[in-house]
């Protein structure tokens, strides 16, 4: 067995590193010594990863090499906006390829017949996200992309830390008031109306076409109307969210209530169970996967609805208000700070629902263990 184990990421990384030496210095502020450090780190990482090392050692070497090189490269951008050479980007590409190799190793290499342990489920996406941010930072600053077009993540991060009070006020206005209230009320009424519509069929027959029509209304169209009806404050945004979340919950719950099998319903009938007993003990339980589906759909719809609704008249606070005004003032870092907050809030909301779903519908074939 050879001590060598070549892999294409390391080979490509090696080539890119060597190529980067043809365009030294990398940036105006880097001088000619620092590139050599970067090249040395990258070469060491690429060569080491082609040896037959233990899993932990290879992962450690790759982590150090890829992130070490990236750190030096980011550092070399100070006071050198838009001056990166071909060599800089080649070295960046080489570091990224080592990062790719690291993810491949952590994911089990495809050849070990495993998909890694429980930890990799979090580590691998985190590494991927980190590399997106690193590449974003280096390309935007290295190539001198105008600030208005795309600010670097560091500027967005700085803006977030410098304006926490504004962001907190916007979060409170948009998420804690409009989204939360609208989401709870919209989903709950959708659910209750579904229960009623299921009990009294004529209700469903009359309601579903109307509901269908309401859900087809463009949000852009109803938002200004809601502002006129419910005023400038968060209530009109909550109303938009209610309209948007009501129908997905209604339709999904109705579908879920039909999800139990004929045999299960016959079984309840042989017990002489009442409508409400069948509903509670059988049909609502069987409907849970559908209901959670609606809750997850609604979590994203609610956030979108509340933010967009704030474009149509609002007090001087709120995520949508901030985005629309700061765009007008070319403060794109503030816009991106709001976008980042919306992304984080939306993901956490969705993730919490997905966790809850797992514990409630543990019996469903997709979650069984």
């Amino acid at each position: 067995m050879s001590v060598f184990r070549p892999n294409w990421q390391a080979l490509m990384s090696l080539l890119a590193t060597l190529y980067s030496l043809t365009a030294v210095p990398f940036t105006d502020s880097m001088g000619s010594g620092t590139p050599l450090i970067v090249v040395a780190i990258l070469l060491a990482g690429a060569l080491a990863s082609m040896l037959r090392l233990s899993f932990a050692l290879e992962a450690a070497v790759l982590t150090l090499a890829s992130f070490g090189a990236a750190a030096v490269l980011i550092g070399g951008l100070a006071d050198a906006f838009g001056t990166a050479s071909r060599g800089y980007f080649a070295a960046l590409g080489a570091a990224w390829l080592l990062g790719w190799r690291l993810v491949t190793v952590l994911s089990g290499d495809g050849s070990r017949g495993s998909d890694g342990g429980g930890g990799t489920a979090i580590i691998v996406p985190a590494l991927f996200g980190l590399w997106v941010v690193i590449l974003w930072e280096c390309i935007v600053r290295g190539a001198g992309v105008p600030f208005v077009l795309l600010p670097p993540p560091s500027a967005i991060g700085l803006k977030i830390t410098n304006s926490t009070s504004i962001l907190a006020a916007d979060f409170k206005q948009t998420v804690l008031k409009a989204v939360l209230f609208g989401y709870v009320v919209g989903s709950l009424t959708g659910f209750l109306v579904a229960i009623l519509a299921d009990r009294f069929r004529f209700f469903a027959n009359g309601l579903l076409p109307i509901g269908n029509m309401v859900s087809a209304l463009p949000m852009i169209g109803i938002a200004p109307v809601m502002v006129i009806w419910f005023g400038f404050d968060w209530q009109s945004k909550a109303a938009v969210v209610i309209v948007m979340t009501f129908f997905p919950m209604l339709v999904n719950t109705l579908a879920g209530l039909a999800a139990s099998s004929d045999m299960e319903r016959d079984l309840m009938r042989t017990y002489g169970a009442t409508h409400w007993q069948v509903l509670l003990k059988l049909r609502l339980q069987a409907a849970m996967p559908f209901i959670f589906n609606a809750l997850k759909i609604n979590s994203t719809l609610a956030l979108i609805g509340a933010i967009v609704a704030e474009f149509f008249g609002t007090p001087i606070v709120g995520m949508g208000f901030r985005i629309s005004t700061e765009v007008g003032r070319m403060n794109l870092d503030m816009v991106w700070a709001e976008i980042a907050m919306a992304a984080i809030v939306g993901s956490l909301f969705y993730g919490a629902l997905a966790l809850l779903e797992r514990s409630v519908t543990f019996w469903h074939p997709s979650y069984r263990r």
Partner: protein
Amino acid sequence: MPETVISAQNLDLTFETNDGPVHALKDITLDIAEGEFVSLIGPSGCGKTTLLRVIADLETPTGGTVSVNGMTPDEARLARAYGYVFQQSALLPWRTIEENVALPLEVMGLDKATRNQRIVSNLELVNLTGFEKKFPWQLSGGMQQRASIARALAVEPAMLLMDEPFGALDEIVRDHLNEQLLKLWAKTKKTVVFVTHSIPEAVFLSTKIVVMSPRPGRIHEIIDCNLGTDRALDIRETPEFLRIAHQVREGLKAGHSYDE
């Protein structure tokens, strides 16, 4: 002479379908006495399951009368006069085995102490002690079906209606469950109506075999079959067993069950 518990007189049932009416049951007259084990046998489409469902008030006949325990099927169902075992176990996947057995008892509104006592005794009856906390999908098909029998028995019904309960199981498991069911029947003395399309199963289990024939579903012949109370599987090689099995097969043949 034991009392008649199920009595069907001139039953007729026609389903209206998109392809026109389907005559599922025609002129069915059948009496079942207390403590009997009656098998309904016949090919697919002969109405054996439909007849069982009429007795259970899961279908309404279009003609004739049925009485169950001296009541209409509707009254008998609400009085929980029978326990019904389906082709599949129909155990609810979000409930453990003991919670599944408790399901009908909760519907009946029994208190927790009674429920627990019935769970324990009925799971013991079907040899599932120790599996109370398991979920249905963690058990084999045979164990699931035994759990569903325990659930039907927990209601403490006067009779058991079983619709091909072992039809989805392999033959070895099926033989084993047939023996267990026979012991259970001897122990509990319940009236059993059992739908099957297996001749050995019908002959092995029954005191009376009702041979049905298709299009329209009707009773072709009723064969008495009493091989004594403690039967073991090897009774299947005895001449008496083979004679009755032959008679059932001849009956099915004469009822055009083997026609294409």
